[in-house]
């Protein structure tokens, strides 16, 4: 297993943010993490990469996280934070290079140079590779930051709301990229708000409610009328189509 969580819980003072989460992510999966605001999606992702302390067991490739140094961790998992603030006027190309340097590489070596070119072309970054990350559009920035994660050449990428703030076209663009990566063998854990999008993109969905994992399975198994009502407290209209279910919230309960 690339990532395994056993009985994971996170407490913030006396407050219980996450409790007894059990989750496994294998090779070639796209796992969608869904749940209402405040259900603990971001907290769970941060706990997974050791950004916040947790109880229970987190292991990558059967190695417990606590035995993995920060440097080694960067080879197991790449993380895209929800915050996409870049402090300096770096070029898109340099942003990608940072990912490579994180795992001890250098884009001045032929091997990594080739990897860089590969990422640039597969993410369609060629036209903006020399441009400043502070000047490009939201969609371009999201792709550039994803490119940085890809340059870490990890088997697993954890992305916190990668589609936030993107227009439909760029959301679909990102979906295609994720699916291409999946075909190449990279696994992903992404948190999402759009049920329809999640159902189409992901191989499995994990649904959180108030810090508990209430469902983990195939999208159509997880996104049922009863569960959506129970977890989100809204009524939804679920329409089965050839491209998968289209799920629209209709009324608040």
């Amino acid at each position, binding site marked *: 297993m690339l990532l395994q969580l056993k009985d994971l819980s996170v407490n913030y003072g006396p407050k219980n943010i996450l409790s007894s989460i059990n989750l496994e992510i294998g090779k070639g999966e796209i796992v969608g993490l869904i749940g209402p605001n405040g259900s603990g999606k971001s907290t769970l992702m941060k706990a997974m990469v050791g950004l916040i302390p947790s109880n229970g067991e987190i292991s990558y490739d059967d190695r417990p996280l606590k035995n993995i140094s920060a440097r080694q961790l960067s080879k197991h998992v790449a993380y895209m934070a929800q915050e996409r603030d*870049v402090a*300096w006027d770096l070029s898109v190309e340099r942003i990608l290079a940072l990912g490579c340097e994180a795992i001890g590489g250098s884009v001045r070596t032929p091997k990594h140079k080739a990897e860089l070119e590969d990422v640039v072309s597969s993410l369609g970054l060629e036209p903006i590779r020399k441009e400043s990350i502070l000047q490009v559009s939201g969609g371009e920035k999201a792709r550039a930051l994803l490119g940085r994660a890809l340059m870490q050449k990890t088997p697993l990428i954890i992305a916190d709301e990668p589609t936030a703030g993107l227009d439909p076209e760029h959301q679909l663009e990102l979906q295609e990229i994720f699916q291409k990566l999946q075909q190449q063998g990279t696994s992903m854990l992404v948190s999402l708000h759009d049920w329809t999008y999640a159902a189409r993109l992901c191989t499995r969905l994990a649904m959180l409610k108030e810090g508990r994992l209430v469902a983990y399975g195939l999208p159509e198994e997880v996104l049922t009328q009863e569960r959506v009502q129970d977890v989100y407290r809204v009524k939804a209209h679920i329409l089965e189509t050839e491209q998968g279910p289209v799920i629209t919230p209709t009324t608040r309960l």
Partner: protein
Amino acid sequence: MTKHPDAPLIVILSLIAIALFLTSLMIGAADLSIAQLIEAAFASEKTPVSIVFWEIRVPRALLGVITGATLGLSGAVLQGLLRNPLAEPGLIGVSSSASLGAVIAIYTGLTITMPYALPAFALLGAAIAAVLLPMLAGGRGQTLTLILAGVAISSIATALTSLALNLSPNPFAAMEIVFWMLGSLNDRSMQHLYIIAPFIVVGWALLLITGKGLNALSLGEETAHTMGVSLPRLRFCAIVGTAASVGAVTAVTGTIGFIGLIVPHLLRKMVGGEPQRLLIPSAIAGACLLTLADITVKLFGPQSNLKLGVLTAIVGAPFFLWLIIKQRRALI
């Protein structure tokens, strides 16, 4: 490996630094010709000119280079660490706190028996400021809180320095607040350099190894952590490195502001915005700028009593204002 992309920049800056260093050696209160100085520099016997050269001009020029390099380098590191182009040892209160430490060490008489108490106390003062600052300003690098926290720390440190000087039984001490607030390289000696040297070496070493971590930190603390950067280690290197080196130079030159602000900003575009590539050029350019400022002070003549920090502030303060105006959108 291909050639380092910044090699031309570093070479050019180094040549300028060397030229300014030599120019600085040629200028002083006494009118000495180049021939006289060269002859004295290599004289086997001690002559008045050779003493002036080796004991007054060389230490002053060296101290200028070391101080400038320290301020430039630490400015670049602090900006990277705090993710803010307005971070600088002077503005965030590190320099004035170092001054406070040095003042306590000197005026209590501690340095008479223990010379190393001088840089050690300055380090302590600087470290307290550097640790307090992020606690006051918050870790997100917001300009407004950063500057407010810096102003608060500076004011407290300056007030306490003033108090310490006023409490000294030596009647001259109270007037020396000017030196501690505005800085000067006047009449410093090799002794000063020897005492601060170990602190400078350790400080620079710590600062120079922060580069890779600072690069990753461009993408935010969380992302940096997952890119193999140990944030506690990075903070330790940046803060202790700054405290040791800025503390040491401040202990012998007083507070000299704005070098660490101007230099990284001027160079940032040339190195593609990357914090790591900014470090060495900032150090060399800092040495250039401070030496240039000191040459100007010397050209004003010994009677003018112009302080080095006045000159750097005259250039630096408008620059600072300009940076704030540029950042105003982010401030609101």
